[in-house]
């Protein structure tokens, strides 16, 4: 069992609090991703799990053991660093074998494990080379290999793909996911890239300014963000957050903003009841904005927008729309007609709206309320 539990973890550097009261759990064999912008405390949290940084308060357990006072080597973990942190003066074999040698593993066993890891990662032909003779992708594999040979209970990865070019990153992303399936071990993976988080994680913990914002499966985070930060961070392009005011007329709730009146569907209205006159953000994802001409459903909202920029992606197009001084990002099908400066009527899909309190940023409700 290699469940990793963090309970009320704090990290303080003098007066600066880097991690505020974080409680989360990586289940056994789970791929948990910590995601957030730079300085959000995700790497610090990972380093505390590794034992590289002390915790100021709280408790960390790996398996059944509280590891607060254990040194990194006694925590049964392996870590892959953003810089790979390969020892430059050792060849690939020695880099991978170093940890085992320090643990006094018998030589034949070291050889067997290094070769096995080498085969898994396809680097057996590189074992005699020094790190400087390797490409970025190869170094990354060696760093993974160094972690694998140890056969640890938990893998910790701190932005391991950040130094790779875009193509290799996508490829390696899939390989790490495959590795996770093959090794059936708990992975905790830190990244600032929401795409990596969404594609790799069984669950994702979103952090900001040292606070844990939300932890859940990628789909739940996408469909039911708890606040504007998660709504804006998860998903690319980001969710549109349109400022407006919640008003009630004839018993029906609607959001009114500049050049926009959006009646709320009953599912969402039920969650927003009693908050009339509040300032809110209406959230709508780019794929839930459509040209009226192409919208098949019955949308009780409609507004005029001007096309500013069109980005063709091949299978779809991202259209930046000017609407009452704000810019909305919409994802249209590739065949939808959109030219710069074109004026068009657009609609928001009422089944996919999100409502957030303007002051706190917290979610008031989501159209798809069944799961929320």
């Amino acid at each position, binding site marked *: 069992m290699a469940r990793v539990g963090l309970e009320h973890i704090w990290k303080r550097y003098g007066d600066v609090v880097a991690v505020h009261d974080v409680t989360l759990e990586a289940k056994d064999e789970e791929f948990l991703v910590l995601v957030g912008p730079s300085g959000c405390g995700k790497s610090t949290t990972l380093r505390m799990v590794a*034992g*590289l940084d002390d915790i100021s308060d709280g408790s960390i357990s790996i398996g059944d053991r509280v590891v607060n006072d254990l040194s990194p*080597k006694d925590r049964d973990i392996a870590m892959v*660093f953003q*810089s790979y942190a390969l020892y430059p003066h050792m060849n690939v074999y020695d880099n991978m074998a170093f940890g085992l040698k320090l643990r006094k593993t018998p030589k034949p066993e070291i050889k067997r494990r290094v070769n096995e890891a080498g085969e898994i990662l396809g680097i057996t032909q590189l074992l005699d080379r020094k790190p400087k003779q390797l490409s970025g992708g190869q170094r990354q594999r060696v760093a993974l290999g160094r972690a694998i040979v140890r056969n640890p209970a938990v893998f910790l990865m701190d932005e391991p793909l950040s130094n790779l070019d875009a193509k290799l990153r996508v490829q390696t992303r899939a390989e790490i996911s495959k590795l996770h399936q093959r090794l059936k071990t708990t992975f905790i993976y830190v990244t600032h890239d929401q795409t990596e988080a969404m594609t790799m994680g069984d669950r994702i913990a979103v952090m900001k300014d040292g606070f844990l914002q939300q932890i859940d499966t990628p789909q739940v985070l996408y469909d039911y963000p708890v606040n504007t930060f998660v709504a804006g961070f998860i998903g690319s392009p980001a969710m549109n957050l349109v400022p407006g005011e919640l008003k009630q007329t004839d018993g029906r709730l609607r959001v009114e903003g500049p050049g926009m009146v959006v009646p709320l569907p009953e599912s969402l209205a039920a969650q927003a009841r009693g908050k009339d006159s509040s300032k809110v953000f209406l959230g709508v994802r780019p794929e839930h904005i459509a040209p009226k001409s192409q919208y098949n459903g019955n949308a009780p909202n409609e507004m005029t927008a001007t096309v500013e920029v069109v980005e063709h992606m091949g299978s779809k197009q991202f259209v930046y729309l000017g609407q009452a001084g704000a810019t909305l990002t919409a994802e249209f099908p590739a065949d939808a007609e959109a030219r710069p400066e074109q004026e068009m009527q657009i609609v928001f899909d009422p089944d996919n709206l999100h409502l957030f309190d303007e002051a706190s940023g917290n979610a008031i409700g989501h159209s798809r309320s069944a799961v929320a």
Partner: protein
Amino acid sequence: MKLRRFADKSFVYLLLILGAVIMMLPFLFMVVTALQPGTYVLSIPPNFWPSHPTLQNFVDVWTANNFGRYFLNSAIVATTSTVITVIFSSMIAFTFARYTFPGKTPLYYTMLMTLMLPTLVLIIPQFVLAKNLHLLNSLQGLIVVYSAGIPLYVFLLRGFFEDIPQDLADAAAIDGAGIWTLYWRIMMPLARPALATVTIFSFLGNWDEFTWALTSISDSNLFTLPIALQFFQGQHGTQYGLVFAASLIVVIPVIAVFVVFQRHFIKGIMSSAVKG
């Protein structure tokens, strides 16, 4: 534009060549003088090529005055104190670079302040101390004093150790390395260029040291080479052929050390220069 760059480059090279010639001329004169009989030494104009080449001066130097013994003494003292200096200065620098502990900064600056004391000011207290510790008139006394010249090297190495990425130390900690393993198996191999610099500087300083050796050694069997060189300067005349042959013998190990370590040395000097 191209012509301008060519002219600039030529000027720089010319200047460098001129500098090199000025530096090498005395050395060339030393080699030539060592390789010819004494009668030709003071000829005008000076010879820059031996007119009657001979190795007699070297034979005379080596056989006279127990020169081999002095050479051995110098080798023992310089090598031992260099090894001690490299090990201790790297340990201290590693600690200052990678760890925090109470009083770290004042301790570091106090250590650096000792660099500001002129060597001659220390001669008397050093002498008294050595006398009380029964280290006078012994090679151990020389080794102890020479090995105390650590602060400069700590300063040099600290910058180098600080430049080694923290991730490597973290990776080593996760691999199971303690402080000693981190120092010996990770940091020391990576600091090779800086260690080469320290080795050369330290060896050079110890090999050439004259004042303390002259002050503390009275037994002629324990003399080192810098003292021995004096023997060829007589009261009524100096045998320049012998002096230069002896000087050449003295200088050869220094050149050898430099040649062996120069690749690392240049890297070390450059990185410490950038680091400050």
